[in-house]
């Protein structure tokens, strides 16, 4: 065989190999494309799956009586905190506005939610048509009360969010942060003067400011100014409702982010001038994000209040706003799954650190700082990147196999 033949054969061989490979590569690239195109959807589905798995894990633990009372008692608050973190992420991460008044919306929701549920408790006796309607359908009236109070809380917090949003969203940057902070404190100060009583027979509500004079003995005072909400028992919040609210929030927020409106919101965040020149109404889109966020925070507040017989106004101070912001920042701005995980972990952490006694909060802060540092270190980042790459390859290969079969 001479040199020329040798060359031709090698050439042909290489060529054949290339053709073979391109056949193989085609589905692989397709899979990659599919992954890139639906990356958001996949991440979103993963978030839902995680929440649902966590729910079943917890339920089976409760069934088997393996769960500690301490953890069981924290399930509903954790759900409320997840909703708060996800909704704040909408404002801070997606819409790019630093809001420090989230606890204010939570408080509006807590108060209105409790008023709604207490009104229903006394307004609809066991003989009323409304009560019997659900009774006949085998639906627990407490569940109805909870759901309606969630809706009422969401509506009122949304309205308050809208009213606050009109002046606030015209401001930019630090000003917005300061105004929202002030708003949270104003809400709390107004509420510390509010007294609400309900007539035990008719369900009529009685609102007064700065005095706790109850009209007659028939009235039960359940919002007592500085004491906050009291006597809100038996509690109507359950873990199922909590998880339901978390899923509802994820549905709303994740779909909003992925929609045309969501892209507009992000465009306003990334470059206001460019967005305006494209004809986007910046205030409108910021308002959509802000009001949605307020609404969900209100619902979380109602859930939280329904879980405790007593809620003090100091709970809704700037500290809680900052705490929720910490959840969001630690989970990653704009990262919904991150918010869910960080809200859960950071709510459980102080309880798990009880072993440290007085040094508990010190350790908590150290853990926070370490988490911030570690997630930002280049080594860990490249490691996470490598894992992601690996997962992607694995995913792509699976699709290749599927593609080859079809």
């Amino acid at each position, binding site marked *: 065989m001479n040199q020329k033949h040798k060359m031709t054969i090698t050439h042909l061989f290489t060529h054949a190999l290339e053709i073979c490979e391109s056949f193989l590569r085609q589905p692989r690239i397709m899979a990659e494309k599919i992954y890139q195109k639906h990356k958001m959807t996949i991440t979103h589905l993963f978030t839902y799956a995680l929440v649902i798995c966590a729910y079943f894990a917890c339920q089976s633990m409760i069934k088997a009586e393996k769960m*500690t*009372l*301490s953890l*069981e*008692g*924290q399930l509903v*608050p954790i759900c409320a905190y997840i909703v708060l973190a996800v909704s704040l992420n909408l404002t801070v991460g997606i819409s790019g506005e630093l809001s420090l008044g989230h606890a204010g919306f939570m408080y509006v929701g807590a108060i209105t939610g409790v008023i709604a549920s207490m009104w229903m408790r006394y307004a609809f006796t066991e003989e009323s048509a409304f009560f019997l309607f659900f009774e006949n359908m085998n639906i627990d009236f407490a569940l109805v009360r909870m759901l309606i109070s969630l809706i009422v809380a969401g509506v009122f917090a949304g309205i308050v969010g809208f009213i606050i949003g009109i002046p606030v969203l015209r401001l930019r940057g630090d000003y917005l942060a300061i105004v929202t902070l002030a708003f949270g*404190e104003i809400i709390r*100060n107004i509420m*510390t*003067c509010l007294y609400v009583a309900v007539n035990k027979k008719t369900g009529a509500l009685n609102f007064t400011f*700065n005095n*706790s004079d109850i009209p007659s003995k028939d009235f039960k005072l359940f919002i*007592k*100014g*500085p*004491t*906050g909400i*009291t*006597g809100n*028992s*038996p*509690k109507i919040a359950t873990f199922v409702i909590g998880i339901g609210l978390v899923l509802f929030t994820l549905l709303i927020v994740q779909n909003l982010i992925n929609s045309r409106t969501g892209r507009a919101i992000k465009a306003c965040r990334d470059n206001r001038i460019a967005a305006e020149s494209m004809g986007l109404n910046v205030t409108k889109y910021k308002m959509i994000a802000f009001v949605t966020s307020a609404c969900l925070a209100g619902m979380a507040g109602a859930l939280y209040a329904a879980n*405790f*017989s*007593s*809620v*003090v*106004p*100091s*709970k809704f101070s700037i500290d809680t706003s900052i705490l929720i912001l910490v959840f969001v920042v630690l989970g990653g701005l704009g990262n919904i799954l991150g918010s869910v995980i960080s809200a859960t972990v950071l709510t459980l952490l*102080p*309880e798990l650190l*009880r*072993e*440290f*006694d*007085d040094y*508990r*909060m010190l350790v908590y802060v150290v853990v926070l700082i370490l988490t911030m540092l570690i997630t930002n270190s280049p080594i860990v980042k490249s490691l996470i990147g490598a894992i992601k790459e690996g997962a992607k390859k694995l995913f792509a290969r699976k699709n290749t196999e599927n593609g080859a079969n079809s």
Partner: protein
Amino acid sequence: MKKIFAMVLSLMLAMGAMSAFAEDAITIGISGPLTGPYAMYGLGVVHGAEIAVEEVNALGGIQFALTYEDDEGDPEKAVNAFNKMLDDGAAMMAGTVTSGACAAVAAEAYDMRVFMLTPSASSPTVTEDRDNVFQVCFTDPGQGAASADYIVQNNLAKKVAVIYNNGLDYSTGIYQTFEEKANELGLEIVSVTTFSSDNNADFSVQLTKAKDSGAELVFLPIYYTPASMILKQADAMNYDPIFFGVDGMDGILSIEGFDTSLAEGVYLLTAFSADAQDEKTQNFVKKYEERFGGTPNQFAADAYDAIYALYEACNEAEVTAEIANQRRGFADVCEMLIEVMPTITVEGITGTMSWEATGEVTKTPTAVIIHEGAYVGAK
């Protein structure tokens, strides 16, 4: 890094070993603010309870073990702490220390059937509609009325000014009943000014108003931290009326860096005075000073009495460690104790106590006066 890690790990192990409980003892849980601005209350309660538990165990009858958790005075954390203590085997609660937190825990305890005897949560909402919750301290409304009564009885003043925290249930609760009783007894309230928990550094406006209105006595139904500021600022503006506080004022002498001479002559309506000459009080105060330093406050005394009340009740109801330490034994213990609680009478250091079935305590309030940096029984 490795060293720190090892240290943390060993610390955790040590803590874990410490929280193991004796099998043959009934565990009592206390949650209260052990850190933060109200820490004095929580620590007082825990220290007082520790002394009482030691004494009770030395008697050789029923054995008690104590477990306590920090709740920072927050309802959510208090419920967490409560659940944690039940996980750890607590059979009954001698807490929660603060009112708001206690109301939240009481609702949980009512549903789960856990017996509660709170040393210091004085709000009536704590016991309202619940058969399992009892108090060692007076209720807020009771304190307001008793204060007005005491001022009139002892002819301390004709014109009274009130400064209270309108952001605090405790404060408003006492003020409202004080006002009612004062009107009834013809005590003239010449000035009423308020402040809030966020704004408690400057009291010049409130004090000036009290001074200008010619009040001879300033009633302070507030906690000790703002009270210390008021005393300081009143001294600075040369205003020297009689200051009259209630149990929240207790602890003012233990504030670090506070000049106790400013508190000279301050009246305090409380059920406990550390200088009482009876043997029990003397013994308690001596032990407290030896172990923890400083004079015990009313919270410590209430907690001390709470443990003895639980001891009496357990003896009366024949609660044993066996019943208490079975799985979820707290529910059985609860029903047994509820039944005997209204029948027992306890001779404590805060007076002779008996209980209504509603949970309220019956005992007589006394006033103490601060003299040379110590609480002294007034008259």
